[in-house]
């Protein structure tokens, strides 16, 4: 029996094979980086993204078990002005970040060389190299793994939302009525649990790649060791005379967006607001703290110098 292959079927097969090879290559790179204990990063080539939202749905499917299952009614909050946040009836929303949607597609219509083009930008947690959400969490619930992934432990998070406030992109999203606070002082402390992209840390730990990368039909994302991915991002940016976002923002992140259009220009046209992060330049949030910490090393020296100076002055007075 002879099987005839249509042109369409052939192309489809070729594309799927190419996707599989690319995905496998990503797996190998990520697995190698993990094996070597290196930080991993992702390159996002936004010229490739067609906005099909396959990644968004894959993310939702892969993380369903991690999503909040709140108990209702929520405890009465004191003082009475404290607002609860409930997304449990809006789990289908995919146009912004929510506790039930950790990745969404941001669109930007921009003018390039006199022609209007539309760019699609998958947005999620940037996974900063020195994440303020992790460093400043008062309960140690936000954690950074050795491979650079930052995630929030839903078992210990109290939902105070400090991580959201200190995040330059306000990424973590809160769901009330779930988590440890319900067992402590639900009316007086805590307000739920914060949720954000955890880069499918559990899949990565098993040598797999994040669901969003796996599902992407256009190979928008490439994952691997940070050094390698950064080098790749620079090569890609140079090839299109483009720009990188995420390399220097907030002191450096593990997500590099590459665009042919300046990010300042993209930032002007994208829809921003709650659950919709910006693309503006971000200074290193932890820089002041780091500098003050270094300056602190001189505090004991200053104290001793002060005491010696006083001792010398007193001795001089006594001799006179």
């Amino acid at each position, binding site marked *: 029996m002879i099987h005839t292959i249509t042109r369409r079927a052939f192309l489809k097969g070729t594309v799927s094979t190419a996707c599989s090879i690319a995905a496998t290559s990503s797996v190998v790179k990520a697995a190698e980086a993990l094996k070597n204990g290196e930080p991993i990063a992702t390159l996002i080539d936004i010229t490739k993204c067609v906005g099909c939202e396959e990644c968004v749905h894959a993310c939702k499917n892969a993380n369903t078990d991690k999503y909040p299952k709140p108990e209702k009614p929520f405890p009465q909050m004191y003082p009475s002005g*404290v607002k609860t946040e409930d997304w449990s009836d809006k789990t289908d929303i995919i146009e912004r970040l929510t506790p039930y949607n950790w990745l969404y597609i941001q669109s930007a219509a921009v003018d390039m060389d006199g022609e209007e083009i539309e760019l699609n930008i998958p947005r999620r947690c940037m996974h900063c190299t020195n994440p303020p959400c992790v460093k400043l969490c008062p*309960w140690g619930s936000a954690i950074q793994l050795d491979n650079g992934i930052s995630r929030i432990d839903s078992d210990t998070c109290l939902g105070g939302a400090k991580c959201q406030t200190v995040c330059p992109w306000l990424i973590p999203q809160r769901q009330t009525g779930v988590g440890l606070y319900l067992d402590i002082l639900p009316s007086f402390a805590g307000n739920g649990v914060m949720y954000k992209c955890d880069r499918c840390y559990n899949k990565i730990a098993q040598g797999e790649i994040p669901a969003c990368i796996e599902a992407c039909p256009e190979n928008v994302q490439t994952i691997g060791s940070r050094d390698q991915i950064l080098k790749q991002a620079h090569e890609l940016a140079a090839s299109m005379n483009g720009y990188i976002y995420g390399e220097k923002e907030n002191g450096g992140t593990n997500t590099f967006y590459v665009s042919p259009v300046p990010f300042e220009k993209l930032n002007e046209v994208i829809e921003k607001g709650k659950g919709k992060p910006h693309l503006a330049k971000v200074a290193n949030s932890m820089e002041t703290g780091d500098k003050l910490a270094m300056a602190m090393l001189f505090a004991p020296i200053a104290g*001793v110098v002060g005491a010696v100076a006083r001792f010398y002055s007193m001795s001089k007075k006594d001799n006179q």
Partner: protein
Amino acid sequence: MTLHDKIIRYFYMTTFAFLTLTGFGQMPIFKRYRIADIPGLGWLAEFYVTHAMHYIFASLLIGLCSYLLAENLLNARQELKITITGYAKAVMILGLIITGGLMIFKNLSGTPYSPLWSLCLIFLIYRYVWFFLFSA
């Protein structure tokens, strides 16, 4: 009490008061309980501000403790009698400085602590602070 001792005492109390206030400011409580709404206290809800201030007052406390230690060693004050409570306070201050120092190290770039270690450190600091506040 000499003027020098009075200044030291005032300096210590002010430093410790701000250290405690900014330390509590690391938790999201001042906004929730509307304390930050009181005119002049809005900065208590600014986490980066309280974080920087906490570091500054920690430096002052470390400087002050070093000063007092060096001064006592240089003067070799024989007449100085330290009570048991005094020793207990000194141990607690030392504990606060050590645990605080470890927290600062944790907050530096490229120093990932294990989640359990971070949690233990945080609870140790809270414990020291509460002991100190109650003993004061």
